[in-house]
């Protein structure tokens, strides 16, 4: 108090902001607002620009592009039905397999099967799977997965060749190795999201099931998984979206063959792989337009699936809030 002089006011730590600080504050807020708007506009810009580039091809080929099977740049014939088929089939197989492995892993990591530190270690290993670049998985697929798959697949083809799924031999690249590597690549996504969903299930539900004499797996299958199913569905849909857009591993493993075959071992093609393989050598504007059209279809498919995934995830899981303990009957 005694030290209070004319300079004291500026020495106080707490004081009202000066006009300059208020101005800086306002400028900063506007900067963040503009950046936020920019990042929102970016998504629209991506859609619009790709659509604009695709316009010549859209006008020329129309909806026929999506159902036609031919891709012949020399004759100016373009169709992406095999690519759409390959994209959907490979990502469905990948997401299905990742669902089995991912949910099993998520259960294994949350339901107290192993000590905590082991749970953390396994979790880190699964997370690191996501860190390996796609192109390295492609390389690994060529030199490890395909040689490992070839004998059993060709045995299946030899003995059960009449079955449509095994109707061609696995020469080198093909749909099955590509789908398997896809599965590995989306496994971390599926595991992480379903793990969070399962961990978020109210422990009271689980304890109630145990209390009624359920075994561990009766509890998991009857209570825990149903209560966390929204998160699990969401993880699968987001994994599917990721799989549909996955490029490099597929470009290296799927075979870039413009065919529709029911066989798992046949080479196939996906939209993303088509872009990766054909874009660098696209010569004419029409070529480029057709590729942009394919890009637009891929964009529409992935946006659709991702929006669906976000919407599923947004809904609150049922059974999250238990009946209050005091209200228990009998």
């Amino acid at each position: 108090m005694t030290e209070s002089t004319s300079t004291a006011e500026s020495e106080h730590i707490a004081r009202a902001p000066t006009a300059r600080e208020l101005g800086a504050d306002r400028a900063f807020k506007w900067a963040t607002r503009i950046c936020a708007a920019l990042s929102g506009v970016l998504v629209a810009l991506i859609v619009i620009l790709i659509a604009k580039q695709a316009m010549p091809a859209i006008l020329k080929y129309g909806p026929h592009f999506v159902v036609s099977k031919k891709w012949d740049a020399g004759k100016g014939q373009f169709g992406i039905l095999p690519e759409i088929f390959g994209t959907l089939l490979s990502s469905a197989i990948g997401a299905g397999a990742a669902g089995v492995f991912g949910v099993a892993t998520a259960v294994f990591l949350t339901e107290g099967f192993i000590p905590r530190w082991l749970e953390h270690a396994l979790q880190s290993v699964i997370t690191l799977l996501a860190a390996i670049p796609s192109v390295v998985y492609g390389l690994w697929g060529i030199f490890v997965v395909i040689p490992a798959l070839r004998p059993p697949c060709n045995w299946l083809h030899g003995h059960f060749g009449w079955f449509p799924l095994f109707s061609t031999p696995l020469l080198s690249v093909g749909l099955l190795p590509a789908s398997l590597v896809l599965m590995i690549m989306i496994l971390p996504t599926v595991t992480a999201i379903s793990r969070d969903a399962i961990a978020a299930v109210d422990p009271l539900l689980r304890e109630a099931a145990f209390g009624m004499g359920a075994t561990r797996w009766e509890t998991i299958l009857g209570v825990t998984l149903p209560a966390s199913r929204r998160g699990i569905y969401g993880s699968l849909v987001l994994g599917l979206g990721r799989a549909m857009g996955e490029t490099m591993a597929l470009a290296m493993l799927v075979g870039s063959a413009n065919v529709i075959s029911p066989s798992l071992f046949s080479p196939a093609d996906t939209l993303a792989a088509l872009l990766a393989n054909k874009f660098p050598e696209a010569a004419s504007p029409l070529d480029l337009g057709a590729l942009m059209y394919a890009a637009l279809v891929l964009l529409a498919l992935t946006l659709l699936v991702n929006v669906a995934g976000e919407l599923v995830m947004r809904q609150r899981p049922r059974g999250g809030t238990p009946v209050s303990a005091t209200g228990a009957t009998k």
Partner: protein
Amino acid sequence: MTQPASNSVGAHAPAKLDLALLERSLRRPRTLFSFCSSVLCAVLALLAAVPLFSVLLMLIWRGAARLGPALFTQLPPAAGMPGGGIGNAIVGTVLVVAFGSALSIPLGLLVGIYLAEINPDGGLASVVRFCAKLLTGLPSILAGVFAYSTVVLLTGRFSPLAGGVALGILMLPIITLTTEEALRSVDSEMRDAAIGMGATQSEVVADILLPTALPGVLTGILLALARGAGETAPLLFTMTFSDYWLSRHVMEPTASLAVLIFNFSKSPFDNQKQFAWAASLVLVFIVLIFSVGGQILSRRAAKLSGAIHS
């Protein structure tokens, strides 16, 4: 009282208690089912971990053969030629990731600050948040298509700048969302105290929130760097490839590790295949450093915020 049968059983139960019934026996179908499911679950979970080790082992086994000073200082070998290195690809990768970071880090930080602090509940915020989530799911090749139809067509050439724009788009949502989350986890009492002392909101962000949330923010940046360094697809037709060192004139096709791996993986020559593996080893090493660093930081960030809250 409507179930006299169960009542009578209940009354007689203590007398008939069979201790063998209480034992955990695999001969009972329910227990057996539970046991088998546990085994199956464990097998599936452990199988899920196999690919990582297989990839790492292959990288070390096939890639280490080429490790040496030449790997970092020489140019990639032409078809059928012996020797060589991947020096230009390493330089190219560093450069394009730097371009991507220069675009996405400032933008991502500012957007994250807007979402967490400036107007978290507004309409713009929810739109931006939704867009960021959609961008996370954007196929990387489409980021490349976008960069091609903007930068490459505008400048008329393939360049690290175009590659950087594509990578920036992929890195942006990661930085945005992790920054938002990190800022939100800061205790609101610190915020209130600073505002109560007359700090403006931007001063609170710059002097209180960002330093406190630094581990979380850095996690996002590291994860984004890991993602950017590993991406190949968008570089295929934005930056393409070059067999030579980057000249002083930066706007030209440039090599990158990722595209080198892709190109050489299809090569019939053993020497080039070996370089594909060696480049993979280097690339995975870089990516894992960022990624593991990010994980460690995020664990520390979680511990920090836990300590403050408790």
